[in-house]
């Protein structure tokens, strides 16, 4: 049965279809969430989060926008990121932490806009490296193994990439 057919069945309330989809993509889901949640117990709980999200959002999937695998990847990443954030929130608060002002928020949004524009100019290996590191949270060791690089090579490339992004964002390294 195809992914689209299984999604249709999930929309119709078929739990078995959800289980099938979760088994089919188990390895991929774990691959995406592992960098954010190194703890095995957290990973298992995150799998439940992903299943819940799939159950709720199955009807929202639009095949014209992205492949199912890509859509699922986003769901997994967001679930893992949310869980990681909750973990951090449970940790004791930093005494020195300050609440951002409205002005800070405007500046943050402006920098975010510049960053997105800068990322749009990245190509090939740089683009892969950027998203693996900052979007998928992969470690230097993992990136090195999967991209045929040494750890030192990855660190060097990331250093150059950050300088380039600063320059593209209008920072001081220009």
């Amino acid at each position, binding site marked *: 049965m195809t992914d689209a057919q299984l999604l249709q069945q999930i929309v119709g309330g078929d739990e078995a279809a959800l289980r099938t989809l979760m*088994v*089919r*993509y*188990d*390895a*991929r*889901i*774990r*691959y*995406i969430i592992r960098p954010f949640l190194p703890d095995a117990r957290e990973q298992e709980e995150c799998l439940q989060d992903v299943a819940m999200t799939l159950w709720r959002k199955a009807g929202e999937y639009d095949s014209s*926008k*992205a*492949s199912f*695998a*890509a*859509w699922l*990847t*986003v769901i997994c*990443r967001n679930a893992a*990121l949310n869980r990681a954030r909750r973990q951090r929130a449970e940790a004791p608060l930093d005494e020195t932490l300050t609440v951002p002002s409205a002005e800070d928020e405007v500046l*943050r949004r402006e*920098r*975010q806009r510049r*960053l*997105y524009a800068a990322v749009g100019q990245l190509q090939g290996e740089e*683009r*892969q490296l950027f*998203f*693996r590191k*900052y*979007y*998928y*949270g*992969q470690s230097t*060791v*993992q990136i*090195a*193994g*999967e*991209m*045929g*690089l*040494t*750890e030192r*090579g990855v660190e060097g490339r990331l*250093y150059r990439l*950050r300088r380039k*992004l*600063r320059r593209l964002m209008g920072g001081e390294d220009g």
Partner: protein
Amino acid sequence: MSEEKRFDLELTEQLADFDMTALPEEEQVEPTPWQHLAGKLVWGVIFSTITLNFLYLDVILPAIGMIWLVQAFRPLRRENGWLRLCHGLAWVLCAARLCTLAVQGTLLPETETFASLERPVGLVLVAVWLALYFSLWRGLLAIARRGGQEQPSAPGAAMLMVWYGALMALALAGPEQVSGLAFVLILLLYFLILRSLRKTLHFFEENGYTLQPLPSRVSDGRLTALWLAAVALAIVLALTFGTRYPMDWQLRPADEQAGQEEIIENLRTLGLPKELAADLTGEELAALAGAQRVLLGVGDTFTTDDGGKLLCRSAAIQLPGEERWVLLQHFAWVEMPRHRSTEALRITLPYEEDLPSHVPPFYAADEALLARMRLLYDKGGETFTASPALEPMTTASWFGDEYTTRCAAWSLPRQGTAARGYLLYGLYRLDDASIVTVSDYVHQQRAVYPALSARQHSASGFWEWGLDAKFRTMQYQMSFHYDHL
């Protein structure tokens, strides 16, 4: 917190809300451990098997393909035993490729020993390739099984093994067994199989079959660069040290012609240039005792692209007895050529001409003075000599039939001057026939890869005369008309 670390955190934070699916599909980045490996594997297989005979792509592409196969299996060597075996076999094939490329840069393939080893070594390599494809198939099955696939399959890898085995069986049966259409079908099948392999890998990629690639101490890019440098070095070393024949140069005894002064004087009086007589051995001079006549052939000078100038001369010396002649064909580098790797002299001796059965022979060999070749050069006031064998060589003619000539092959000394040599043989003239022979002196003017000797070039067919800048074929005609004999 350092500025660098702060920016690092900021990038992660800023991307927290980023929606990848909002990007156009072609711009979306979906990492999997398979992406990089699948590319290396498929292109490694393609480059390793492809042969494009121009711009040295038949050397470069397979070399790159081999190292890409190593790079594809390197991070997977801990995944399972089969993939570990693949990694080892890929290195074995790499080493074999390096050896092959180095050997191709030498004159070894010209030797009989090498020719006898070629087939068994080739069969071993085919077995290694089959083992690699088999291990790949089993290795992918093991990953699929571990990933929970109920009926694990990797048809692309299995078909690749079968296809390669069938292709090698066809190659052993002889390429002539493969018609044009069959060739197209084989090629088509090959690409379908590779597509299937890519599909298998893509399936693994989509379903995220787990892999834990190992980071390496040397990056893929650096490994490729190091490997290509090793290949280039092996080829350069092979071309530098392997493209010359081992020559047994001997110091010419100062008294080699002692006691033959009278014969030399007689020959000089009859008109034989003294520098020609000066190169002969005492034994050869003794055979020329009592010479009655000396006829000189027309000399010819040839130049080569690498600055050499070759002077070819000939003489027919009549000895006492019924139409008994000695033919002397002499060549001397008046100006030494810069490139000194291989030389060859090819000739059909008058008494070995292939005549129709109804035509009686015009000449008979003088058993007392069979054809011999001698080379000489000077260095530091001394003369060194060597005697290359004048061996039969079979060549296919334009019309497809084969004919046999004699050929001597040698290398000029790296140092030294006045390199020269001669061909000497005796014959009986059985009829009132002219003595005409055409010889080809082939000089290699520059290095060739894969290595090709002047002898091999000469054997490859005379249609290449003068057209190939790597070799210079100098055709000299020794002719003595029957009116003068």
